[in-house]
């Protein structure tokens, strides 16, 4: 056997660069399990139901606001969306719930998925077209509109598809773009000195909890946290270049960051937390959980008989 000449992995040649578009294409359309999409859909639609009923309700009371307070966003001007009424917010709210519950069955994934997407997105629009826009909800719009494109996907599906791969990849990209673009927005609005400003101290002053209030007495800590957060956001795209094992560790680290944020200032970017699930092999976790549970039950039955 003649040894094939090996090139060092780091020496990129012009040929490699020329192949970049193909490699990007192959990466975007990597075949991924349909069962993962089916599980992510369940999480996304379940979240829609909880969100409109419990978490984010300002869209609803805008139905009661005088139309003079309606301040259309650009998309509302393009689509000439009218000011909210109680009837409209009722339809959007319950439309979101009914379509999302129906979509969770996995039937008619495109029609029900897009119906949910339109109702939920419009409902968010109503919430944001009265003077204040929340920034943690835009990436979820991408998930809602993209997941239906995969078509039928059963929870016990064993197939893989490129359409599934693209949808999951796009959700991952949108989720990470949220972090990365947050750091760009900090540079744009706060300037490079943002990391040295009192932004976190102000947040703790206004919304602090017993977990975080003591940090005001240790200003160094909040200052360091600002540097840490900014660096993590700016470097977040690195996640796509890591090994699978480190990628999952990084997702876990982000989840821990969000837990810490919630403990400190009771703010959680809920839709975004659902998006981050797109990085995880949900169907493997499900299978492991199910088989563990079966073994545990079998062991218990053996004990009792």
């Amino acid at each position, binding site marked *: 056997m003649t040894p094939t000449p090996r090139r060092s992995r780091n020496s990129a040649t012009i040929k490699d660069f020329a192949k970049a578009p193909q490699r990007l294409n192959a990466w*975007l*359309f990597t075949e991924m399990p*349909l*069962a993962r999409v089916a599980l992510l859909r369940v999480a996304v639609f379940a979240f829609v139901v909880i969100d409109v009923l419990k978490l984010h309700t*300002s869209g609803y*009371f*805008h*139905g*009661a*606001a*005088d139309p*003079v*307070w309606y*301040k259309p*966003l*650009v*998309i509302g001007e393009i689509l000439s969306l009218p000011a909210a009424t109680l009837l409209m917010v009722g339809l959007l709210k319950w439309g979101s719930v009914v379509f999302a519950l129906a979509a969770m069955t996995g039937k008619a994934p495109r029609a029900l998925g897009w119906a949910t997407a339109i109702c939920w997105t419009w409902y*968010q*629009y109503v919430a*944001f077209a*009265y*003077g*204040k*826009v929340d*920034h*943690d*909800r*835009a990436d979820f*719009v*991408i998930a809602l509109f993209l997941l239906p*494109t995969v*078509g*039928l996907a*059963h929870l*016990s*599906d*064993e*197939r*893989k*598809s*490129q*359409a599934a791969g693209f949808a999951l990849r*796009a959700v991952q990209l949108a989720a990470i773009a949220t972090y990365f*673009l*947050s750091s*760009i*927005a*900090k540079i*744009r*609005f*706060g*300037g490079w*000195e*943002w990391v040295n*400003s*009192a*932004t*976190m*101290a102000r*947040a703790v002053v206004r919304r602090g909890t017993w977990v975080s209030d003591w940090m005001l007495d240790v200003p160094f800590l909040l200052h360091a946290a600002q540097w840490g957060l900014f660096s993590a956001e700016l470097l977040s795209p690195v996640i796509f270049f890591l090994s699978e094992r480190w990628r999952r560790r990084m997702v876990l680290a982000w989840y821990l960051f969000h837990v810490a944020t919630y403990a400190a200032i009771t703010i959680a970017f809920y839709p975004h937390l659902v998006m981050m699930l797109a990085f995880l092999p949900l169907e493997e976790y499900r299978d492991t959980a199910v088989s563990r549970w079966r073994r545990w039950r079998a062991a218990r039955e053996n004990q009792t008989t």
Partner: protein
Amino acid sequence: MARGTGEPDDVTATAWRWRAAASLLVGLGVVLGTVVGHDRWWPLAPMAQYAFGVDPDGEIRSTYVEGDTTAGTTERVVFGMDGIGLGRAELEGQLDRVIADPSLLQAIAVAHSRRMPDQPGYTELRMKQRVSTLVDGDEASRDDVLLAAWVVPDPEDPQVLDR
């Protein structure tokens, strides 16, 4: 073709083309939104949560609306579902509009009389701001500033103004 049998519908040339086009458009929109956009571009708005620096020697402003009533009292207007259907931060997002056209405050008088018909109506509404000046992070002084005032015509039964 349910339950994982057969070949899944895969990405055809047409399907590839519109995915590529949509990705480019959304990607471009998001980047533009972050670099030059603002909140009104939602869902392409910049991710500006906590992006603003806070000057430890600056000031903190909080907006409120107070109303004189037909009973001769002065009270704070209630925001949110139980009040005018608008949150405080949302009114703060529309300050310029109200300052330019104080007659917008008429909507508050109308909403109040409809939702709480037993309460005395508003005769005059004033949108104000409490300005706290910080020195080294501590509140050194505070001041109340009038931003807009509106005398309500027919306070017993205020009507929506023609626009």
